[in-house]
């Protein structure tokens, strides 16, 4: 009986650990589950990237890459978009003293393909949720270094993910 208790406890622990872990590097998470709406007009969006942003692996010689995870729960149809969240930003990583990388920063979601990050006034359409439900996806960030780019400093970019309700 004691052994059985231990096995059950371990099974519960492993299940919770699996659910808690960030996405795997080898298998992109891209799952949608339909649910019945209980609270009208509700959207929950969560990003598991660290509070202070995420670090790319070295940009030089590159590409610098990183990944995280996003989860969305919506009781109606929704749309997920992304863009450069810096006012006037053009989708490129830059430093505070004026150095800008030639190639735009790139993002992708789940098993999709990489897209150049849209500037602050544009939009990358990343996902459409046709029905109420929950979605979990891996977020990917990539930066290429181009000959001629200045390598002696650190670069930043600010990606804003927006999840919004749609209407008919």
């Amino acid at each position, binding site marked *: 009986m004691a052994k059985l208790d231990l096995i059950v406890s371990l099974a519960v*622990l492993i299940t919770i650990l699996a659910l808690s872990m960030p996405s795997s590097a080898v298998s992109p998470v891209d799952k949608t589950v339909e649910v019945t709406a209980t609270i009208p007009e509700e959207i929950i969006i969560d990003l598991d990237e660290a509070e202070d942003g995420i670090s790319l692996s070295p940009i030089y010689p590159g590409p610098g890459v990183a990944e995280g995870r996003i989860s969305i729960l919506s009781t109606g149809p929704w749309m997920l978009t992304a863009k450069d969240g810096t006012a006037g930003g053009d989708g490129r990583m830059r430093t505070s003293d004026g150095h800008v990388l030639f190639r735009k920063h790139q993002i992708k979601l789940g098993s999709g393909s990489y897209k150049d990050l849209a500037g602050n006034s544009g939009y990358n359409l990343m996902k459409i949720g046709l029905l109420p439900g929950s979605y979990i996806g891996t977020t990917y960030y990539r930066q290429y270094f181009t000959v001629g780019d200045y390598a002696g400093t650190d670069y930043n970019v600010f990606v804003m993910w927006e*999840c919004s309700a749609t209407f008919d």
Partner: protein
Amino acid sequence: MKKIQILMLLLVVFISISVYASGFKIEGAIWKEKVSPGGSITKEINISIDPDDAETEFTIGVAGLEQTLQGINRPLSASNDTSPYTALPFISVSPVSFLLKPGGSQTVTAKADIPIDVGSGTRFAILSLRTIKAATSAEIDGNRRVGVSTGSNIPVVLTINGSEFLMTGEITDLEIEDPISVANQNVSLILKNTGNTQYLAKVKVQLKDEKNNSLVSSEMDSGVQAIVPPFSRLFELSLVPEASLEPGSYKIIVSAELEDGTVLDTQEIGFEI
């Protein structure tokens, strides 16, 4: 055995606490309501974060609604908002910024004072909700950082009671991709909403030979997001005939329709092989 179970429970609690998540919950993610000229209505929107989220600062503002050719609703500043169907001038929101502690929530009240001479149809706006903490962190930290943040464009859709609703549309920019192939024809067109309210639409495309025989057809709908006036939607379709086209004259007939089959506009374009 009880001790082992308690230890495991504590471990699970610790793991749950240590997994960081940045985000928020909105209750009231869309404001869609019928209104009367001269009337006043309010909408409560509740924004909250989880106990394991970091302290987060939010801003929320009223903006015009602009729709891209792909059907994305985006906020437009008052100076750039020229839509005759904007609700921006008669909407206010309070508070416009607030700080949420972990586990905290804030109710935001939006108010619309409908002018007596508001006119007919539907009026649109966006309540633009943004978190601003992550941007600051990324800028300060440096080190090849990708700062991430979340936001939401809360659509405002106010339908005016007693209105005459016009659902009209016009096809523009009908084109066949060059060079024209004998195996498949890629067609693109733009459908402009010339009415005074939003609608879902579909586009039907048909390929006919010079004897008016239908060779192949295709259709595409506007998806989950309605087309908002006075904006337009891009449709791209591919026609693949069963057999390669022989030399001759052909035409592509395009029809834009509402969901119930009401035809909004038709056009045709010819080509030679």
